[in-house]
């Protein structure tokens, strides 16, 4: 027996619709201290008990900017001549040049490391103090404080650690490791000579040892730099997460009140006043001339769906019959039923699309 909706059920559904709309717009209760008289009276209390303090501190304290510049140069590549063939003077000169370059690279990496460590320390301190301040302030934050939080989040998103910086450090590290190996090989191949060149050879050995030491120092510095930058990146992500978690609880809409219905009425009135049929017919004519094929196709699909509705419904029923019968039940029947439900739901959608393209 077919059931028709009673007047009571219609009323309930309308009320449910209104409630649904209200809840969708219902924000957290604390909102907009400038406009709300209740909150404006609360504001001095907040300043008394110290809840406003974080906002002042937030405004006054310069925030850490976790921007790190990429290293200017890639590590110098050591050009080692063949020990047996090359001139010993040439080897010494090449090794001296490489040593100087490597020492400069080590200094640069140490400077970058110190800077990154200082940024990391400041960011960690800021994160901890910010976390404490947020805990103290609770969820009762004002609109201006929310704006500051939002600004800080945007800044952090803008100034996050560049991915190519980490990649650059990784490539420098791998190059330095390769060179360390190459140096060790060169040192092993180079044979001691008891002749007149022994002084030069011992100088070369000393240079090689110094160079090896410099390369090892460089690798250590780069490793530390890599760890620091990775930690900094994690810290920035944690900071962003903290801000996002806090912003999630902040109000994003004003409370629905009696003016809402009036506003809706005004909007509907404006909407109807804008409907001019001469302009509408002109627009439809122009649109059909421009997109006639697409509109025609959608209209055709709509007509087919309307005509075939009975058949789709019968198919849906036919697909439901073998369900539960172990010998006949197939997954394909459920998929067909899903497709039938989809097709039946498409009519309204296509109707609006057709109107849209008109």
């Amino acid at each position: 027996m077919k059931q028709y909706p009673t007047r009571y059920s219609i009323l309930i559904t309308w009320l449910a619709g209104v409630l649904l709309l209200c809840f969708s717009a219902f924000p957290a209760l604390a909102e907009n201290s400038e406009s709300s008289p209740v909150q404006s009276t609360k504001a001095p209390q907040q300043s008394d008990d110290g809840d406003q303090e974080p906002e002042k501190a937030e405004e006054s304290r310069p925030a850490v900017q976790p921007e790190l510049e990429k290293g200017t140069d890639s590590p110098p590549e050591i050009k080692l001549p063949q020990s047996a063939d090359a001139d010993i003077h040439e080897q010494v000169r090449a090794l001296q040049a490489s040593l100087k370059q490597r020492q400069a690279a080590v200094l640069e990496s140490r400077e970058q490391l110190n800077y990154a460590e200082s940024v990391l320390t400041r960011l960690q301190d800021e994160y901890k103090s910010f976390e404490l301040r947020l805990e103290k302030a609770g969820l009762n934050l004002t609109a201006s404080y929310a704006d500051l939080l939002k600004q800080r989040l945007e800044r952090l998103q803008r100034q996050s650690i560049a991915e190519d910086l980490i990649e650059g450090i990784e490539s420098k590290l791998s190059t330095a490791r390769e060179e360390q190996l190459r140096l060790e090989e060169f040192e092993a191949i180079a044979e001691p000579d008891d002749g007149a060149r022994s002084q030069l050879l011992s100088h070369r050995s000393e240079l090689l040892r110094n160079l090896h030491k410099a390369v090892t120092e460089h690798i250590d510095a780069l490793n530390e730099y890599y760890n620091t930058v990775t930690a900094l990146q994690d810290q920035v992500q944690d900071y962003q997460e903290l801000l996002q978690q806090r912003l999630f609880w902040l109000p994003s809409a004003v409370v629905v009140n009696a003016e809402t219905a009036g506003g809706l009425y005004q909007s509907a009135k404006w909407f109807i006043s804008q409907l001019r049929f001469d302009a509408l017919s002109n627009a439809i004519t122009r649109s059909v001339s421009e997109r006639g094929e697409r509109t025609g196709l959608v209209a055709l699909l709509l007509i087919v769906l309307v005509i075939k509705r009975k058949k789709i419904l019968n198919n849906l029923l036919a697909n439901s019959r073998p369900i539960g019968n172990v010998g006949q039940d197939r997954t394909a029947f459920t998929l067909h039923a899903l497709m039938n439900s989809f097709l039946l739901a498409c009519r309204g959608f296509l109707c609006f699309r057709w109107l849209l393209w008109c």
Partner: protein
Amino acid sequence: MEGNAFFAALSKGFTAAAFIMFLLAFVRNVARKKGLGESHFHWNPNSLLVIRREIPLLMAFVIPVTIITTSTSSTPEAFSLMTAWSPALYSGVHRTGDICATDHESC
């Protein structure tokens, strides 16, 4: 839809309404008697009956409101009207669940 700003805004309203209508109609058709929910997934028939009965009424309320609010918020003239008279409704319809503090533009 071609034409002036109003018809452009109206087309946005229709787009929003089309998607809402499709979703609600799909749920209603899944809840159809001897349909996907009842026969294939063995969902509670009473719940499906309530869905079948109430969704058309919900659509009758939600779709016009969506068309009006989306259209009016898409034109500058109506946007001022909308935010002046019904900011809560405007925010409710346009709330996307993302992080936004208090200003409507950022939502």
